[in-house]
């Protein structure tokens, strides 16, 4: 750090708040030469913030300290190659500005798979067994079994885990294999930077020279035409060379708006598998597995308590577990059901509050665009009967209410009617893709 700049910062401490200093001025790099003091901001936003709010003060202090007028120049960039402090390694989505232009454009090969995400650590249940089986097949026969493999489903259900697990298995079977994992935002920002620095050839070459390309959350490609164009060509090149492509998306890609039709059709060439929200047993098993990994002593009773009350996704389960661990650690208490109930009372209540029968009825009515009063009426036309059965089945799935209570809440119906609704909907979900998607989407809306 320039000595002048160091003294300037010390002086500014008396004039500016510490938040301002640390957040906007400390990240600046400084170089001093015969032309004056050069300050380098890590990104355009910081540059603007410093120029608008602090530059006059900085100039004043610098001149004062030097005893003469010293030009101060501010630009985006880096002062010189130097030992960097630990800094985040990935990049930004295109909606935001690239914040660290000095970083290498591409992530490194074969080093960015998370070794913790393997098939062994993946908790299998009905909701995800097909996804796991497909990912394993792909990992055993990369480029041959299914290409591309597309895993889709709501956030926090294990898509990324399966993707890394497949990548890790590919590498374990063939240690020389080049597997590249990245989030879609990294692909986007890497391309934006390649365009800025006129290094598109390099960008193309890097992506096309891998044996397996894993891209997470491709829904963020929606509406980004240039990115889609480039990804389309990358996809074709990899596909033709029989290199494996694994993608994840938060929904069935055909339903993604603002995605080019030709890309959608390519995505359908291989296998698309839905990862569904885990059922109760799987949630409990996930909790036990994660608590085991964290070295926590969590009983089955506690796991069942959390699994019953938190239905949204695996991340919420993990957050609850982390919070429980931190609190138990602080109080030095064992994690009993009472302790969990007490500690997570607000969390569990908020989760429970979100899913009430009236809430389900209203959400289902909105979803199918029928009137709530019709949904609760005695009318038996098909256009109402199906949504009504859906709402009943969801009430059974998502609340603690008994069949008679649910029947009561639906205009005083018999409990056998509710039971019939649950069975009908379950039957439909097994046969009818459309119905299953409605079911999943509604669960997502109600629990997310």
């Amino acid at each position, binding site marked *: 750090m320039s000595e002048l700049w160091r003294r300037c910062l010390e002086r500014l401490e008396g004039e500016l708040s510490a938040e301002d200093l640390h957040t906007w001025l400390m990240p600046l790099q400084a170089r001093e030469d015969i032309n004056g003091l050069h300050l380098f901001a890590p990104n355009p936003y910081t540059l603007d913030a410093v120029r608008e709010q602090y530059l006059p003060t900085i100039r004043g202090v610098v001149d004062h300290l030097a005893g003469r007028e010293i030009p101060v120049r501010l630009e985006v960039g880096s002062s010189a190659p130097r030992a960097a402090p630990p800094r985040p390694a990935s990049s930004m989505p295109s909606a935001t500005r690239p914040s660290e232009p000095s970083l290498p454009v591409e992530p490194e090969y074969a080093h960015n798979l998370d070794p913790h995400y393997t098939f062994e650590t993946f908790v299998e249940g009905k909701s995800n067994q097909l996804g796991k089986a497909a990912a394993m097949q792909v990992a055993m026969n990369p480029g041959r079994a299914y290409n591309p493999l597309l895993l889709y489903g709501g956030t926090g259900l294990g898509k990324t885990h399966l993707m890394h697990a497949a990548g890790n298995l590919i590498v374990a079977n063939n240690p020389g294999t080049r597997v590249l994992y990245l989030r879609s935002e990294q692909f986007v920002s890497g391309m934006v930077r390649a365009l800025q620095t006129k290094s598109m050839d390099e960008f193309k070459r890097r992506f096309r020279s891998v044996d397996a390309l894993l891209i997470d959350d491709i829904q963020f490609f929606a509406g980004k035409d240039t990115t889609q164009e480039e990804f389309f060509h990358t996809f074709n090149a990899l596909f033709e060379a029989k290199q494996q492509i694994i993608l994840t998306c938060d929904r069935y890609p055909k339903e993604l708006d603002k995605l080019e039709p030709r890309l959608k059709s390519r995505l359908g060439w291989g296998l698309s598998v839905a990862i569904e929200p885990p059922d109760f047993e799987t949630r409990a098993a996930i909790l036990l597995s994660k608590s085991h990994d964290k070295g926590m002593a969590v009983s089955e009773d506690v796991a069942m308590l959390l699994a019953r009350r938190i239905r949204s996704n695996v991340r*919420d389960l993990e*957050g609850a577990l982390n919070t429980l661990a931190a609190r138990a650690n602080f109080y030095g208490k064992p994690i009993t059901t009472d302790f969990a109930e007490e500690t997570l009372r607000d*969390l569990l209540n908020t989760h429970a509050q979100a899913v009430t029968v009236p809430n389900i009825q209203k959400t289902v009515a909105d979803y199918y665009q029928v009137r709530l009063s019709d949904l609760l009426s005695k009318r038996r036309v098909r256009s109402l009967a199906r949504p009504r059965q859906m709402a009943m089945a969801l009430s059974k799935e998502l609340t603690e209410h008994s069949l008679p209570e649910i029947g009561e809440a639906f205009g005083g119906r018999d409990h056998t009617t509710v039971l019939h609704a649950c069975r009908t909907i379950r039957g439909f979900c097994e046969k009818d893709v459309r119905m299953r998607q409605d079911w999943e989407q509604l669960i997502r809306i109600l629990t997310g």
Partner: protein
Amino acid sequence: MITQLPLALRWPRRQRFDQFFPGAANAAALAIVEGAATGGNGCVYVAGPAGSGKTHLLIAACQAATDAGLSAQYLGLRHVRGARSEAIAGVGGSHLLALDDVDLVTGDADAELALFATYNRYLDAGGVLLLAAEALPVALPVQLPDLRSRLGACTQARLVALDDGERRHVLQAQARHRGIVLDEVVLDWMFARYPRDLGALLDLLDRVDRASLAAQRRVTIPFLRSLLREG
């Protein structure tokens, strides 16, 4: 050769861990944030009502990280001029990032996306992300499901507002710390004007401190009245 001393700019003096009065209910939250500040990684989500000490804990964590030789940044979203998404994307590169007023990203698609990307960056890099908001993640109306689920994965540190007795205790202690004598009548008067928000009371105390020093006067109700009229 000149040995360069590491620069250790001070964070606000009032907001340190040892100045945080946890009362009966907030000791665990204090311990969780304290642990994350110097020894942890991952994301801690501090939730609590206005005036319960969220900003205090965030700033104290920045100070503790700085003391431990780690870089730290604090961004209060309510103070951001212009687009919040750009401010969120503009901070970073530090070991610890404290983002205050996270409630304010909800419904702003760009800001939600920027926070999602920031979350990923910090967790990928093994850094620490401290977030603070009034509502728990599950009750925060976040539109981007990817962000909502990530907020749900954070370790939660819940804060509750101190009760009246505890807030009086804090105010008295802070006043003594500054060498100000506050008698009960003056305290009653202050509490009548700022019934809930301890942060606002402490800001007032800072002003009182400066003004009474400048005026060389004891703190009385007429003095406070004239001070607030001027403000």
